[in-house]
């Protein structure tokens, strides 16, 4: 989709054209879900975040003026949905799902059997990505969002600044700190990331 086509599509969405909205969602749902997954580190939460984000887009599309990229605007909404959820969870001191799963681990493990274990290499690769995601999950929310936007979504410093309402200098210095922190968290398992 060219930028001109996208602009036209957004205009149709603003007029309440459902087919146009369907098309717009198709164009972005994968990226939104991936962003939400990397932010939350959890498939089901990624699902909930994506749905909430698209609902907000649907409700707010008439307010989109087009002075920023649509994708930047969209990622801003996804990031805000994620950050809002985190805040809400902290406020209600929700017993985290993971903690509960640990208690339940035996029953879960008993029921779940992999029908076809892959070759060792695949397991190692998976472990590597899981560990990296775990380290990302352990970062403070804002740092996590920056890391994901930059490294997995490929946003520029300027775009991240727009998404997070910060100036570029702040984004750069915080991202540097976030990467150093991540590096530190990966230290105990650095052999997984040897070149």
């Amino acid at each position, binding site marked *: 989709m060219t930028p001109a086509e996208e602009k036209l599509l957004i205009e149709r969405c603003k007029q309440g054209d*459902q087919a146009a909205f*369907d098309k717009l*969602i198709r164009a972005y*749902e*994968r990226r939104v*879900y*991936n962003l939400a*997954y990397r932010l939350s580190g959890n*498939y*089901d939460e*990624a*699902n909930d975040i994506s*749905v909430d984000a698209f*609902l*907000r887009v*649907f409700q*707010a599309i008439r*307010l989109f003026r087009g002075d920023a990229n649509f994708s930047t605007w969209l990622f801003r909404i996804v990031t805000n949905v994620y950050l809002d*959820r985190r805040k*809400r969870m902290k406020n*209600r*001191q*929700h*017993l985290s*799902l*993971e903690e*509960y*799963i640990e208690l*339940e*681990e035996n029953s*879960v*493990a008993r*029921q*779940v*059997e*992999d029908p076809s*274990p*892959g070759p060792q290499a*695949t*397991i190692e690769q*998976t*472990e590597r*990505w*899981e560990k*990296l995601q*775990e380290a990302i999950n352990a970062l403070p929310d804002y740092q996590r969002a920056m890391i994901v936007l930059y*490294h*997995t979504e490929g946003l520029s410093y300027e775009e991240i600044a727009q998404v997070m309402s910060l100036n570029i200098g702040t984004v*750069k*210095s915080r*991202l*540097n700190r976030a*990467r*150093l922190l991540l*590096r530190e968290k*990966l*230290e105990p398992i650095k052999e997984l*990331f*040897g*070149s």
Partner: protein
Amino acid sequence: MQCQTAQELFSDYIAQELDRAMTLSLEHHLSACPACRDEVAALRRTWQALDRMPRVDLPPYFHENLISRIVAEQARVEQEAAARRAAWDWRWLFRPRQLAFGAAALALVLASAEVIQTQRAALGPVGWVTSLFRHPSQQPHIRVEWAPENPADPARRGTLIVRWYAMPATPDSGLTYSVLTGPQDTSVSTGVLFQPDTDARIQLEQRPETVRIRVTGATTRFRREWSLTLPKASGP
């Protein structure tokens, strides 16, 4: 150059965004400081790993479910608009979608014969996830939460929240659910999935020990059943 000053330049150095003078000055420090040199090398590896993170697949029916949510939402918005004769209410945007719970709601994720994806379980001793792309969230599954009204007394009155994932809940499949609790399988709630929410919220006088959840398609042959035993409450 101090190590701390050097550290602040690492990202720009790796991205080759430092000017020549700064690059030389940092490299001068690196040549004399093994700790910073190691740090840069490790940071570079972290950076590369981050850039190579694989993409994950959308869960099944993601698009269909999302569209049916939006259609329901549109109906709701239009209804509201008609009721208030207001063309647009910006506050609508910021209305939180979720119920606000009291502190320390208990949350649990349970599964029976169906497979459920959890980060921690994925790292567990069984090694049942061999590929990120075959994550079990591709299977229809549920998440169950128990939110007690009074967190100090989690076995009393509360809300049982059931969320559905990867279910073929398009409007025409007509998926309905029923929730049964207790030794007699007493039906406590029935309803239609995705009309308009992805979850069922069931007020109960006390926390059930067992929960059975059935999902049946009216026009499809889809049928799933989950039996859960809720772990004993240990208080907040």
